[in-house]
C-alpha cells in the first residue's frame, strides 16, 4: 500500500475547447502525492489550480494523460464511479463551507454516511467527529445559516471525515474566515495530517502554504517548482 501514491498525475492535460480557440488549463502536468503527505498547491488565479483541484476531486476528468486516485485511473470512469469515488475516497472542504442549508449541522455530517451505508449512523461516529472539531450537541441541532463561519467550517471538516477518506481536499479552507479562526482550522488540518491523513490544500495564501510540508507551485497549467 505504501508504494502506491494517493494521487498520481502523469502527463495530464486539460483542454477546454472554445470557439475562440482551445484553452489549455493543464499542460502536461505530472505530480505525485504520497500517503500521509501535507501538500499545498499554490499559484496565482488563472494558473489552473482550480482545474487541477477539480481533477483530483473527481469532479472532472482530464483530456489526456493518466490521473490515478488511490491507484485507480479516473479518466475512463463513469459518472456513477466518479460519484462513488467522491463519496468514499475524498473529503472535500470548501472555501464557502458548502453545507446543505436544509439540514442541521448533525445531519450535514451524517449525510455522506447515510449515502454510503444506506442507514443512519448508530455507531456514534458523527457525534464523535463533531465533538472532535468542537461543535457541541446543542450547536449540532442548528441549521448552517445559524452558525458562524468558523463553526460552519468545523462542521464541514467533520463532514469531510465521516466516510474516512484517503484524501482531504481543501479549497482555500480559510479564505472566508478571519485570521484567528483560519488559524484554528489550519491547526485542525495539521493535526489530522499528523494522525496520518493525506491533506491537500489549494490556496494562494502564503501563510497557509507555509504550514504544509511541501508546496507545489502551478503557473499557466505547468508545475513551476516544488
Amino acid at each position, binding site marked *: 500500500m505504501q508504494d502506491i501514491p494517493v494521487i498520481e498525475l502523469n502527463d495530464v492535460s486539460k483542454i477546454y475547447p472554445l470557439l475562440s480557440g482551445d484553452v489549455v488549463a493543464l499542460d502536461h502536468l505530472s505530480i505525485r502525492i504520497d500517503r500521509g503527505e501535507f501538500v499545498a498547491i499554490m499559484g496565482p488565479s488563472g494558473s489552473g489550480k482550480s482545474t487541477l483541484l477539480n481533477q483530483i*476531486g473527481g469532479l472532472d476528468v482530464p483530456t489526456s494523460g493518466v490521473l490515478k486516485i488511490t491507484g485507480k485511473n479516473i479518466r475512463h470512469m463513469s459518472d456513477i464511479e466518479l460519484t462513488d469515488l467522491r463519496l468514499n475516497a475524498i473529503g472535500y472542504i470548501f472555501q464557502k463551507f458548502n453545507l446543505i442549508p*436544509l439540514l442541521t449541522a448533525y445531519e450535514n455530517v451524517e449525510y455522506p454516511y447515510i449515502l454510503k451505508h444506506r442507514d443512519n449512523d448508530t455507531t456514534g461516529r458523527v457525534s464523535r467527529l463533531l465533538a472532535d472539531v468542537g461543535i457541541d450537541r446543542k450547536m449540532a441541532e442548528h441549521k448552517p445559516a445559524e452558525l458562524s463561519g468558523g463553526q460552519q467550517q468545523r462542521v464541514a471538516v467533520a463532514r469531510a471525515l465521516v466516510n474516512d477518506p484517503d484524501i482531504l481536499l481543501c479549497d482555500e479552507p480559510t479564505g472566508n474566515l478571519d485570521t484567528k479562526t483560519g488559524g484554528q482550522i489550519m491547526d485542525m488540518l495539521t493535526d489530522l495530517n499528523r494522525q496520518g491523513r493525506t491533506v491537500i490544500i489549494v490556496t494562494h495564501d502564503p501563510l497557509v502554504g507555509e504550514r504544509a510540508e511541501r508546496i507545489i507551485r502551478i503557473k499557466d497549467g505547468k508545475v513551476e517548482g516544488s
Partner: protein
Amino acid sequence: MKKDIILQLSVRSIRLNFLRSVLAAIGIVIGVVAIASMGMMGANMTMSVTEQLSAMANVLVVKADTGGGGGFFGGGPGESSGTISKKTSSSSVSTKDYITKSEFDDLLRAAGKYGTVYPLYQTSDKIQVGDNQGRAAIYGMREDDMASVLIVDQGELPKSAGSVVVGPTLADRQGLTLGSRITIGDATKNESVQKFRVVGILKQKGMSMDLNSDNGIIMPEKSYVGIVGGMEQYDQVNVIVSDIKNINTTKSAITDQLNRKKNVVSIQDSSRMLESITSTVGTLTTFVMAIAGISLLVAAISIFNVMMMSVTERIREIGILRSIGTQKSEIRRMFLYEAIILGLVGAGIGAIMSVILGWLVVLAMVGTTDYFFTYQSLIYVPVSMTIGIAICIFSGVYPAWRAANLDPIEALRAE
C-alpha cells in the same frame, strides 16, 4: 429508525417554500375536484336516465318483417302517425305488413311463458270532438288484454261496441270527459264515420314503446275492425317480459319459432334506444370532463413552474450534494419526491373535496343523489386522484432530469 435522507431533503424543501408549494398543490386540488365531480355527475346522470328508461326496457315489439330492415327506431308511435294502414293493398303482393292469427299463436307459444303477449291494431285517423277536429292514434285491443294491460284512472274499460277509453293527454287536449262523444273517420275521404262514447280515461303512462296510450283512443277489437277492417291482421304484437333478465331469451325463442326459414317478424326492443341515450350522456360527460381536464393542465404547468424554480434556486445545493458524492439518480429522486408529495397532498385533499362538491353538483344537476354512493359514481374519485398524481410526476420529470444533469463544477460556482 431508518429514514430516507433524500426524502427528508424533499420534505424540507417543500416546507421551506411552503406557500409556493401550497399554491401548486391547490392547482392539483382544483383539477382533481373538477374531473371527479364532473365524472360523478355524468355517472349519476347515466344511472338515473337508465333507471327511468329501463321501466320500458322489458317490452318487445314484434311486427311483420316487411323486408325493409331497420328504421324502427322509436317504435310504434312513429309509424302510427301515418294515415290509415292499408291492410290489403300493397304494391308488393308478396309481403304483408301485418301479423296473422297463426303467427300470433306461434308467438304466444314461444313467448307466453316469459310474460304477457298481446296483439294490437293501430292506426291514426281524423277525429272530431264537438267542433274540434284533430288526429289521434287509434288502437284496437282484445277485451281480455285491455283488462290486463290498461290502467284506468276514471270510469271503466269499454264493454260495448260504441265505447272507447282515451289517454289523459288526448283527453286534456280535446277536453274529453266521461261521456264525451268522439267522431272518428274522415268523411271527406269517403271513410266510414262513426261516433264513440268515452267511458274511461287512462292513467298517465309516459313514453313507451309498445302502446302510446297517453295520446290515443283505445277501443275493442270489434269496433276497430268495424272502422279499419282486417280482422286478426295485427299491426304489432307486444310482449311484456316479466323478468327483464329474460329479454334476450324471449327474443331468441321468438326468432326460433317464427324466423327459422325466413324472416317473418322483426323484433324490436328498447336496448338500442337505451344504448343511444346512455352513449349520448357518456359523450357529454367526456366532453365536460375534458374541459375539467384543462384545469389539471394548468395545475401541471404550475407544478412544473414550482419545480423549475426549486431547481434554479437550489443549483448550488445540487452542486454541493453532487460534489460530496450524491448520485445523479438520487438528485433525480429528490425532485421527483417533491413532485410526488405535492401530487399526493393535492390529490388527497382533492379527493375529499370532490366527494363533498361532487355530491352537491349531482344534487343540483341530476336532482337525485340516489346513485351517488355507487361504484360507478365513486370510481371517479380514485381515477381523478390517479390522474392528478400522474400529472404531478409527469411535470416533475424534466426539472428532476435537469437538476440531476447539472455540471457539479458549474453548479458549485453558482451564487
